[in-house]
């Protein structure tokens, strides 16, 4: 970087807030962590749904009271919705700018959080009754 004598700012002052890696790697690492976790979880989830979708109301509830299907479903929901929120975040950042970006990012996080809570609550409610 060239030093400009007329510029009173320090080299640090000039580069600050131009973009940082303070939390950027955390987000990328979380995308990768959830993606690796979702490979076996998705296979398990598909097997579970193949069983559940041919069952009636009482049949579905009976399966979800068992620990392994319930925990598999909870893990899939948690990893899946975190992954989904991060994925949509990168789509928003790519295509939306200005004030709309901040609103879109907030809406994305709120939607994902509510969806995750609804799915986890419903699963736990079936599991514990």
């Amino acid at each position, binding site marked *: 970087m*060239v030093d400009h004598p007329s510029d009173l700012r320090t080299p640090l002052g000039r*580069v600050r807030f131009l973009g940082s890696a303070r939390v950027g790697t955390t987000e990328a690492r979380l995308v990768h962590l959830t993606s690796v976790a979702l490979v076996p979880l998705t296979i398990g989830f598909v097997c579970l749904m193949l069983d559940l979708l041919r069952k*009636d109301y009482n049949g579905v509830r009976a399966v979800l009271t068992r620990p392994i299907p319930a925990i598999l479903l909870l893990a899939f929901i948690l990893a899946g919705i975190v992954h989904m929120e991060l994925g949509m975040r990168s789509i928003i950042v790519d295509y939306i700018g200005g004030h709309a970006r901040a609103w879109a990012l907030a809406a994305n996080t709120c939607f994902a959080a509510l969806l995750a809570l609804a799915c986890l609550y419903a699963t736990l409610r079936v599991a514990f009754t």
Partner: protein
Amino acid sequence: MASSDALPGPRRPRPMSPHLSIYRPTMTMAMSIAHRISGAALYVGVLLLAWFLIAASADSSSFAVFSDFIGSFIGRLVLFVVTWALFHHLVGGIRHIVWDAGYGLDAPLRDQMAWATLIGGFALTIFVWSIGFAVR
């Protein structure tokens, strides 16, 4: 060029990724777009899972509304598309994990992996739906 970034005054526009209007289409580009589209489809498709779970946690009449929908033509079509999006994104995701590890980036293999994503996504969808109809 590098020093102009550090000059005071109005900030230069952020660099943008050169995409559709810059490069002619390639298979890896098509699968990159398909990965994003299938991911966005799953963003909507997860509502189906939420509906299923909420209906199962409520009474049997709520569950019957879900069952009627998923058994209908429209419901099955939606589920089929979501199944494809899930498998396409899964296979594409594995491809990205392999690439991120530094393997399969050379010329013939990266295109073969992109084709494998497309074929694998459809193949797994048809495979799982066949099982679904067989065990019904």
